[in-house]
């Protein structure tokens, strides 16, 4: 017997449809309320990279794994500020139809999910053994989530209810039987579902009939991406410091050029004097979009 824990961080092969992307925008890190929180369509903006002839593997077919391209939609990223993208496993919200046991193996407990209560876009996940490893979180009656509590699905199969006459009336008469064909009921065994040896009379909680649950995959670790859209960076500041500049004596227009001699900023320079012609202020005023195009650097210097 070897005891230990083996594992590593591995690139995920998750499909975009299994990803929820939540966007949070705030104009400033100092903002503490009025967050803009919305959901983005991962299938549209998240795209996996595929192998090509250079990386090996089957070009354009085999997923590279781990590396994804996230498109930042222009209609959302249209302001300066801080955008936080939260990528988490997609959540399937449904309800426990019943908590039951298998007819042939009554010591096997599990939850039964009615596929009619599963959102249409996630029904393709509900195949035999398709939910193994998925996590189940539970909601209270008031809609709050039971914190820090979850179960993991260890098996799931289509099932159908069977009726059994039991001598012990405290036991349920409805039990379930696995079937190979497709039904609208899915029997999921969870872990842990057996009593621990040190407390054999304890039955682990796996849910209650009618309880709302959240099923989420465990294909990848949730991540957050902090995207700061900034007005200035070192380049623009360097332009202001070291870029070419012209000052038009006639009209006082002060122009700063970038490294390509494009007009970077343009200012009006003027003086304010009092009635005695005493100089009170020297002013530099940003012209904004009111660019005087005649101050083309190339035209001026040639």
């Amino acid at each position: 017997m070897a005891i230990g824990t083996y594992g590593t961080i591995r690139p995920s092969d998750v499909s975009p449809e299994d990803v929820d992307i939540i966007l949070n925008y705030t104009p400033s890190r100092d903002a503490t309320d009025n967050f803009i929180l919305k959901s983005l369509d991962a299938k549209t903006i998240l795209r996996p990279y595929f192998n090509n002839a250079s990386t090996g593997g089957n070009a354009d077919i085999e997923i590279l794994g781990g590396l994804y391209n996230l498109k930042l939609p222009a209609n959302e990223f249209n302001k300066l500020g801080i955008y936080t993208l939260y990528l988490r496993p997609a959540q399937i919200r449904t309800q426990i139809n019943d908590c039951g046991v298998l007819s042939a193996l009554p010591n096997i407990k599990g939850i039964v999910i009615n596929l009619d209560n599963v959102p249409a876009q996630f029904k393709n996940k509900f195949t035999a053994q398709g939910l193994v490893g998925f996590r189940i979180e539970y909601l209270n009656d008031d809609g709050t989530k039971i914190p820090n509590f979850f179960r993991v699905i260890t098996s799931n199969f289509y099932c159908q209810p069977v009726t059994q006459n039991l001598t012990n009336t405290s036991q349920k008469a409805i039990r379930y039987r696995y079937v190979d064909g497709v039904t609208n009921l899915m029997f999921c065994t969870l872990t842990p579902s057996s009593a621990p040896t040190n407390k054999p009379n304890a039955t682990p909680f796996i849910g209650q009939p009618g309880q709302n649950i959240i099923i989420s995959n465990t294909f990848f670790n949730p991540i957050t991406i902090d995207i700061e859209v900034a007005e200035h960076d070192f380049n623009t500041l360097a332009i202001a410091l070291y870029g070419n500049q012209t000052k038009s004596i006639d009209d006082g227009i002060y122009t700063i050029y970038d490294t390509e001699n494009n007009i970077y900023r343009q200012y009006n320079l003027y003086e304010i004097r009092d009635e005695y012609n005493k100089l009170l202020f020297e002013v530099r005023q940003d012209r904004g979009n009111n660019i005087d195009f005649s101050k083309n650097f190339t035209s001026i210097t040639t």
Partner: protein
Amino acid sequence: MNEDRYYIKISPEVINGDIFNICYPSGNTYPSGCTYVYSGMSQILSGGTNGDSLLTGLTIPIMITETAVDVGLYSIFDGNLLQSDVVKNFVFSAQTVSPKRYYFYNTSDQKYKNYLKFSTFEVDWGDGVSGQTITTLSPNYIYHDYINNGTYTITLTQKNPWGVNTVKKTIVVPFTGTTIDNPNGTAYFTSNVGSWSATPISYDYIFTGDSENNIVSQVSSNYTSTPFLITGNTDSRITELQSYGKNPYVLNKVIKDKNNQFFGVISAMTPTYTGYTIQDTQYLDFIDGTTSYLTYSSGLIPEWMVQEPIVKDESLMNIVYQPEVQSDVFIERGKNSALERIERLGEVDNIGDLENYGYGFFNFIKQENL
């Protein structure tokens, strides 16, 4: 930055397209041509249609990973499919020549008996005679002679620190060789402590509510005929048939064991091989020094083989840190589905395989003089 959080700054230096291209209308007084004006980030972000960003191709590469962890606990239970009746069960037999004598074989699993070392077994023959402790496992057996004809329930009780497991099977005295109903019996569990109101206390191995309540419909269609022929190479055993005297090997001379039972006989002596039989196994010693054997499987005939569906005990699929004995089942870190048919009969090509098939699927008891 760790692997779960990324920080990305988008500023003029990392984007391409931060230049407005302003061309002059014809006839103005400016120098002809276009002037390029650097646009600030805020202008780019809102310069598109409906205030959208002009950065329509803005993408970032991200890394999505998962933490793959193997529990890392490997034991003899790994991958094993263990049926409840493997850890506690028995088979019985009788002969029509002495129809009131029933033989009892404790088939509680031997491979895992280390986990059952705390167990004690007791047999109740069901006829009012006090229980009999049994300390041996199959193929050893005990037997009981019933005095009166009737229907009796044989009960095997396995006591362990976790509770008491019992298996009950019904027999009819005198034994007539007719089909035995529910040969696997009914399993019961009574806990030592606690309230088990939600736990079934008994169940038949085949549930009567199944729409097709017969064994045949639930077993694999793969099968093999028994007894089947087994051949192979081995070491010569001819020396075991030696007799005293100057001619130790005598053709057709029956050699008996210390109990005066048939042991073997030399059946052929040719220039190329010597043929002999030891304990129902035929051997051929060839002139080149090799020996082949030929025998049949244990001699079970289909009528004496108990068919039962192989159903994986799904509780074995729980992820646990140690193999545990819980109520009447063993818990292990299972890997396969409960619906998975164990169709490995095709791999059976010797007695050992057959005995190991399905982790005790066949209850192997050699019947004599049936």
